[in-house]
């Protein structure tokens, strides 16, 4: 009952949505569209689960005065500040505290974190390129050409640089990207099928 019924529910829900794709009839679509909305609603409540988990994990560290406990308080304060401002203090529109927090905390924090990767990616690249194999050289040279060809200095060095980059992007890069995409899609489909037929059950948890 506790394991078999969920597997049957998963199978039936999955099978019906696969069939729906092949029955593009106007009488069928609204019915399934409703269920799609249901899935979004369920997912919304799952986010509360995620938030509760963040609070629970960090509360334990704060309570035990574990490692970095003070910073965990900042994390929790940041989380609840955004939620309280968003729900109780004017919503999320322009001029609200939430809006200002988005523009002056969330957005700069995110973009600076990603900008920081410019430094780490450079050091990682240096270490990777020291592995002197043909493949590593191919990767390094392509990266260098793409970077040079996309900035004005590249065109000044050699005027055909942008054309070469265009060719790399449209031919070998495209071929590699397509193969990875097809491979990943085949993997995703096989995993999805395993979930549907009940071979993959880790999402159900223990016991």
């Amino acid at each position: 009952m506790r394991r078999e019924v969920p597997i049957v529910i998963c199978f039936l829900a999955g099978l019906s949505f696969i069939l729906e794709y092949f029955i593009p009839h106007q009488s069928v679509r609204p019915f399934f569209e409703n269920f799609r909305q249901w899935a979004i609603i369920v997912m919304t409540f799952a986010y509360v689960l995620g938030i509760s988990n963040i609070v629970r994990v960090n509360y334990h560290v704060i309570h035990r005065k574990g490692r970095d406990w003070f910073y965990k308080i900042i994390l929790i304060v940041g989380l609840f500040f955004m939620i309280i401002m968003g729900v109780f203090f004017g919503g999320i529109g322009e001029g609200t505290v939430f809006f200002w927090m988005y523009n002056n905390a969330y957005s700069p924090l995110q973009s600076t974190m990603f900008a920081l990767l410019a430094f780490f990616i450079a050091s990682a690249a240096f270490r990777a390129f020291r592995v002197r194999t043909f493949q590593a050289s191919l990767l390094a040279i392509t990266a260098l050409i793409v970077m040079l060809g996309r900035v004005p200095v590249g065109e000044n060095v050699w005027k055909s640089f942008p054309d070469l980059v265009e060719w790399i992007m449209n031919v070998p890069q495209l071929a590699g990207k397509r193969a990875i995409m097809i491979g990943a899609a085949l993997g995703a489909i096989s995993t999805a099928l395993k979930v549907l037929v009940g071979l993959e059950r880790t999402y159900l948890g223990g016991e």
Partner: protein
Amino acid sequence: MGTGEILWNGLALFLTLSIFSILYKDNPFYKIAEHLVVGVSAGYFAIILYYNSFIPKVWVPVVHESKFLYILPTILGVLMWTRFSRKWSWVSRYPIAAYMGIGMGVAIPVTMQAYILVPLYATMQPIGFTSMALFNNLLVAAGVLCALVYFFFSKEHTGAFGGVAKVGIWTLMVGFGAGFGLTVMGRVSLLIERFTFMRDYLQKLFGF
């Protein structure tokens, strides 16, 4: 610049510098900013979901439009919270299973269509040696085929098969190299944007 803007942009400047301080060494300012990223991001997405999903899909239909059918997915969603109870956690499997089923059912045909059939169709173009376009089509088709052979691990990569797989990995390396180059450029653009923001703020603040 008004006082409010000075303060808010000052916060943005402080957080930007706090994150960059890790380039020197690990320090409390970085840790504060790092933990703030997690908290603020989680709070931000919670509110976005609240306004884009809970209010229009649950609150408005049930409370304002009396569409009580929407109580059913709400109950399913609330059942997910039983995950925290040792005794009742098994109940959460029902909504999770329903969600997984719908998700997989939607994903399988869409993935098949968008990520397998469409790219394969785009790869199967006229090929030849008479023009650059035809030759490029040939290179793309050969590259895709070779790279797919590289991903085929049921047969040992030796002999002619190994040779084709080797060409496949060269193709993949060129692809990764191009992707890497674009990623670096994207990150550097963000870095420039952050420095521009700091310069503009200080210019406005001190008027130089």
